[in-house]
């Protein structure tokens, strides 16, 4: 219910991280996702990571989409 976009964690210092979105970089807070690691993709909402994106789930969804589109 609010803008959040995938961002890559480049470095972490305490509860702050440097995030990269296709070359755009910004300092963000990991207070809501303290378990995030460098190399993780997170959903970035107003300067905070609100969750860590699971690449396996992302791939599952794509797989499902392809299956459904073939089924018709």
């Amino acid at each position, binding site marked *: *219910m*609010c*803008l959040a*976009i995938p961002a890559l964690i480049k470095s972490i210092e305490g509860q702050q991280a440097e995030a990269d*979105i*296709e*070359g*755009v*970089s*910004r*300092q963000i807070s990991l207070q809501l996702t303290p378990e995030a690691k460098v190399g993780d993709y997170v959903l*970035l909402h*107003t300067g905070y990571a609100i969750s860590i994106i699971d690449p396996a789930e992302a791939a599952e969804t794509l797989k499902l989409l392809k299956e459904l589109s073939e089924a018709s």
Partner: protein
Amino acid sequence: MRGSLRGADAPLFQIFPLPCQGRGIKGVGCKINSMNMEDKILLAHGGGGKLSHDLIEQSFLPHLANPILNKLEDSAVFELSGRLAFTTDSYTVNPIFFPGGDIGKLAVCGTVNDLSMSGARPLYLSLSFIIEEGFAVADLKKVIASIKKAADEAEVTIVTGDTKVVNRGSADKLFINTAGIGIVPERVDISAANARVGDIVIINGNIGDHGIAVLSQREGLKFQVPVPSDCAPLNKLVAEMLETSGNIHCLRDPTRGGLATTLNDFAEQSDVGIRIEEDKIPVDKAVLAACELLGFDPIYIANEGKLVAVVAPDDADLILKKIKRNKYGGEAAIIGEVVAEHPGKVVMKTSLGASRIVDMPVGELLPRIC
């Protein structure tokens, strides 16, 4: 078709005393002869006295003087014949310095581009500065150097100018006003009202670079974008396009309000519909990411080195090829066409194949978050 500047006395700069609350300005009695980099612009610099003179001599002349011309006259006098194009603009960009340019470069390119969009060859510019008291002389010199560089690239001459200094708080650091004169070649007839059904819409490259570069430097937004402003003089590009084809109907630079505003202007003034395809609009992926971050649509973001051309269909491919060979046209693309349906409106075909209206933007763009 060069105009000739009469005599050796083409004027450069004029500094008028500002009627500032009765402060006696003339003959301040200052012994400052050289301005070092820590210096700040004082109200006295606008006073017409010694400090004003020093300002011209040390900050403006070294960059902008035509070696022949060193007298300061009240007006530039020259001869020109043909259809003249005349434009004026004011520059208040904040911040003054941004990745890819500054207010000075913007002032020259913006003016040159306005003239070019009529098909004119830009020739002479005027330049007026309104400087806030306390502005750093070093910054002023940087801006002037940028102006010189941009003017040299565009091959235009700054022939007259003015400087005012206002009290702290009465201006935001530096405002620049320009006027520009150019000559429109015979048989060139370019206007926002000339689009015809069947025409092709071309843009010379990626959209949104300038607006995002400036926004990234603003307080409260704190993000870094690797893409600098696209600020550039387009007069040579336009000249090359005009050499290629006599069927360029509309030209405009999509500055404030972005591509969407320019297309809406064309649609309305020509009373035609315009259809564009989302997938064909060139955008740098970092600029797109910054837009997604802030909730903006790149089609509404300002550009300072772009032009939108509406051209006859038979010449479109040739013109596109020509644009792509220019240093400011590498990412050029055909993005749409002019249609008879929905006159006055711009419609975009989305990647899924649906159509939606592209409206004019409203007010100042606010970052959308929630």
